[in-house]
């Protein structure tokens, strides 16, 4: 599975790169618009190991951010699942926060939280949590009548149990969305670094953009893609493991 993911990523990356180069030669664009293969190779030799370190750095923050956003999404999903006024209030709040592009509220976040680790983590988590939230809200607000009936009529239902039942019945959807949201955690962390950090691959991308160095960006995209493929592969693996063990403990 992991092996397959990496292979597929390589194919996609190659396809994308080929497309760029085809455009370059078709439109006869100079090297400063789209770098030549040689300059790509040069650049990658120069920056590969440094960028690799940066990507690992970013991945680490992304993983923490993903965990935080899973917790956040579960929390909001659980509170917002009720059709009560408060439930829908929570939902509106969550939606509204998300509607604002992070660039617009970043100044406010920095004012309130300073520029420490917290701001970065918050931004990463905010970007990542929303798809999780949507799925979890959808799942948590839909009763599984045939299973819940017994607990409801015998007065045994508790919100924890309700959540457990709905999560279990939708475990496939949940694992899909959790492993999928890894990509968003990564993107979120990179954006946060782009705006505020002084480490990580987002920081390196900002510099490359500032120096208008597309070949570095292409190298960075490679490293981001490949590490993410591995991470996602592992997440999917643990997803199916969770499915298996929860259903046959």
């Amino acid at each position, binding site marked *: 599975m992991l092996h397959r993911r990496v292979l597929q990523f390589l194919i996609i990356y190659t396809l994308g790169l080929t497309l760029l180069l085809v455009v370059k030669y078709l439109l006869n664009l100079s090297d400063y618009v789209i770098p030549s293969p040689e300059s790509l190779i040069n650049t990658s030799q120069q920056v590969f190991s440094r960028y690799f370190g940066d990507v690992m750095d970013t991945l680490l923050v992304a993983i923490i951010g993903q965990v935080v956003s899973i917790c956040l999404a579960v929390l909001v999903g659980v509170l917002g699942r009720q059709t009560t006024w408060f439930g829908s209030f929570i939902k509106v709040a969550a939606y509204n926060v998300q509607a604002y592009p992070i660039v617009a509220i970043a100044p406010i976040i920095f004012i309130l939280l300073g520029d420490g680790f917290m701001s970065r983590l918050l931004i990463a988590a905010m970007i990542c949590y929303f798809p999780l939230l949507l799925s979890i809200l959808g799942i948590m607000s839909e009763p599984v009548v045939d*299973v819940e*009936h*017994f607990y409801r009529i015998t007065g045994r239902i508790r919100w924890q149990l309700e959540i457990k*039942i709905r999560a*279990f019945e939708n475990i496939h959807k949940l694992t899909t969305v959790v492993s999928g949201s890894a990509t968003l955690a990564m993107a979120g962390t990179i954006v946060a670094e782009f705006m505020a950090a002084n480490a990580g691959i987002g920081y390196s991308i900002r510099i490359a953009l500032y120096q208008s160095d597309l070949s570095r960006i292409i190298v960075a995209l490679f490293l981001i893609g490949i590490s993410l493929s591995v991470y996602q592969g592992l997440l999917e693996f643990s997803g199916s493991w969770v499915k298996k063990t929860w259903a046959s403990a």
Partner: protein
Amino acid sequence: MLLACRHITLKYAGSEKYVLKNFGFEIDGPGFHALFGPSGVGKTSLARILIGSISDYDGEIVKRRIQSILYSYNMERLPGWSNVGTHLDRITPSAKRDLKDEMVNAFGLASFCSQRFSQLSLGQKNRINLIRYLVQDFQVLIMDESLANVDEITREKILLTIKDLFPDRCFFYISHNVLEVSKFCEHIVVIRDANKQPQAHLIKGQNFSNGHPLDKNAYEKTMLEIMNAS
């Protein structure tokens, strides 16, 4: 009187037809009773009225000394995260552990407790589900085709066990089997189409239980009565 339905009238939203019309019956006390009638006549609807999950009806329900009416049906599922044995343990009040074990054996389920619910046969599912309800506190339990997918021999055994163990409770057993309801039930509420009046007839059954002989003639008479009332 324990439970009475009076002038119950029910029409589903958007539908023209009455499901129940001026429907009524009265049950004096505990016992194993049946709700009987052709498919689509309104048995499940009545059950849902009794537990309050349908509230858009006319008429009145009168209850005496009933704190808890439970309703169990044959499509229910147990959560899949533990095996059925663990699940039963968890929902059984500790005072009723022995009762539960007794039923697990009597219902022929002892060797299936380590399986997941999804790995059971239909009839096994029915039986496990029923046990969950029987170990709860209740005055009235409505069993909506709860044993529909269980073979006759096992079913008889289960009914006799229930009658033995819970003489002071009130059951409403929904079944399509005339023989069965005639034989085992104390009263049979025979329900017929809403445009026949009265819609319900209360018929005395044989109320057969362990250690009592079954009067063949009376039994056949009951069946006949039910047929006629339908």
